[in-house]
């Protein structure tokens, strides 16, 4: 029996697996639900109250994290048009100082087993890729809505079910004899990774946070093409099946398009239509960068710990170059 924990015992909710798993399960009721669980549980008042409590704690922690890291968004000039300022800030915030350390590790050092770990960790999101953001469509309007629909259409395969990004990822998993059932990855996924997925649901399912949801999307898309190219090279180095390469190959080109759509056409137009969302958009982008970089750090630390524990293991600290 796992030990029961009280809500007040949670010191760092963004790295707390129990906390994040509880929130993930409550969110899942809004996506696909669970076999053997009544679908009406989605709107069960007690569950909604529980979810609201967890969300308040999570949002507070994310705001603190953003304020305390170097991912804090720039302040906007109050006397000039916010939309171009937001576009410019999003570009600057996402240029960063290089490719993600996780992508570099996968390209140069990861063993086959570590690459599989990575896919397993990311499966929680990629098997449901882009679903959170679809909840935002009815909450925005005009040019921003048209642009979000255009981006989502591409994520959902551009009319071809076999090109749904979630399906491409499932095929990558299958090619390595890995499960395509999200639930099978839950026992091992880190609290940090669950937090990065829950963050998208938090923003997308609360209409109040629609600006943050779109800022998050912009930061996510704009920091994807270059890492995907690195991961693709790692997959080639390890001679992983075509299906694995196909997923990352698709994302180099797709996310180069999505970067523009998300920053300019979605966030730019959203802030033009609703200028009061400008700060939320930047907060969402900063939150994406801060929370995702924590999840990346956690992955790297875990890999290093495992290598340290079995020093004779293959590929220790060797760069494949």
């Amino acid at each position: 029996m796992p030990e029961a924990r009280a809500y007040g015992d949670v010191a760092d909710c963004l790295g707390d697996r129990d906390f994040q798993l509880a929130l993930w399960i409550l969110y899942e009721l809004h996506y696909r639900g669970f076999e053997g669980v009544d679908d009406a549980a989605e709107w069960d008042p007690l569950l909604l109250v529980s979810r609201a409590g967890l969300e308040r704690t999570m949002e507070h922690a994310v705001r603190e994290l953003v304020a305390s890291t170097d991912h804090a968004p720039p302040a906007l000039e109050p006397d000039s048009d916010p939309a171009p300022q937001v576009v410019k800030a999003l570009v600057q915030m996402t240029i960063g100082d290089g490719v993600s350390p996780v992508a570099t590790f996968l390209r140069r050092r990861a063993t086959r087993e570590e690459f599989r770990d990575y896919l397993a960790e990311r499966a929680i999101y990629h098997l449901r890729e882009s679903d959170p953001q679809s909840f935002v469509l009815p909450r925005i309007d005009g040019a921003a809505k048209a642009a979000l629909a255009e981006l989502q259409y591409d994520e959902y395969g551009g009319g071809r079910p076999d090109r749904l990004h979630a399906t491409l990822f499932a095929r990558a998993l299958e090619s390595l004899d890995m499960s395509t059932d999200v639930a099978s990855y839950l026992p091992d996924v880190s609290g940090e990774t669950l937090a990065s997925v829950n963050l998208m649901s938090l923003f997308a399912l609360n209409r109040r946070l629609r600006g943050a949801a779109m800022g998050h999307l912009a930061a996510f898309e704009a920091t994807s093409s270059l890492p995907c190219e690195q991961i693709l090279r790692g997959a080639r180095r390890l001679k992983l099946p075509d299906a694995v390469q196909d997923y990352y190959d698709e994302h180099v080109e797709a996310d180069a398009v999505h970067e523009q759509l998300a920053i300019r056409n979605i966030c730019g137009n959203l802030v033009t239509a609703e200028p009061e969302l400008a700060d939320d958009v930047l907060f969402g982008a900063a939150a994406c960068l801060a929370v995702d970089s924590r999840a990346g750090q956690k992955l790297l630390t875990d890999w290093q710990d495992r290598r340290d524990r079995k020093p004779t293991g293959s590929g220790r600290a060797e760069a494949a170059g």
Partner: protein
Amino acid sequence: MSARRVTVEACPGGPLLIRGADEVVSDDGTVGKVERSVVAVCRCGRSDRLPWCDASHRAKRRSRKKDD
């Protein structure tokens, strides 16, 4: 066919977004077949996937590929 709209949208510091085209030919004659509803065509010349943009325009320094 005749009702089809082809549009080109310039993204400052980045690619051109093209909607409705069938193919894009790059400088060196490579023909890129358009396979999505919006494509991003590189304008900076740094892409490894010309004619398409691969987001290399946002890499601060170009790290020349050492591993392929």
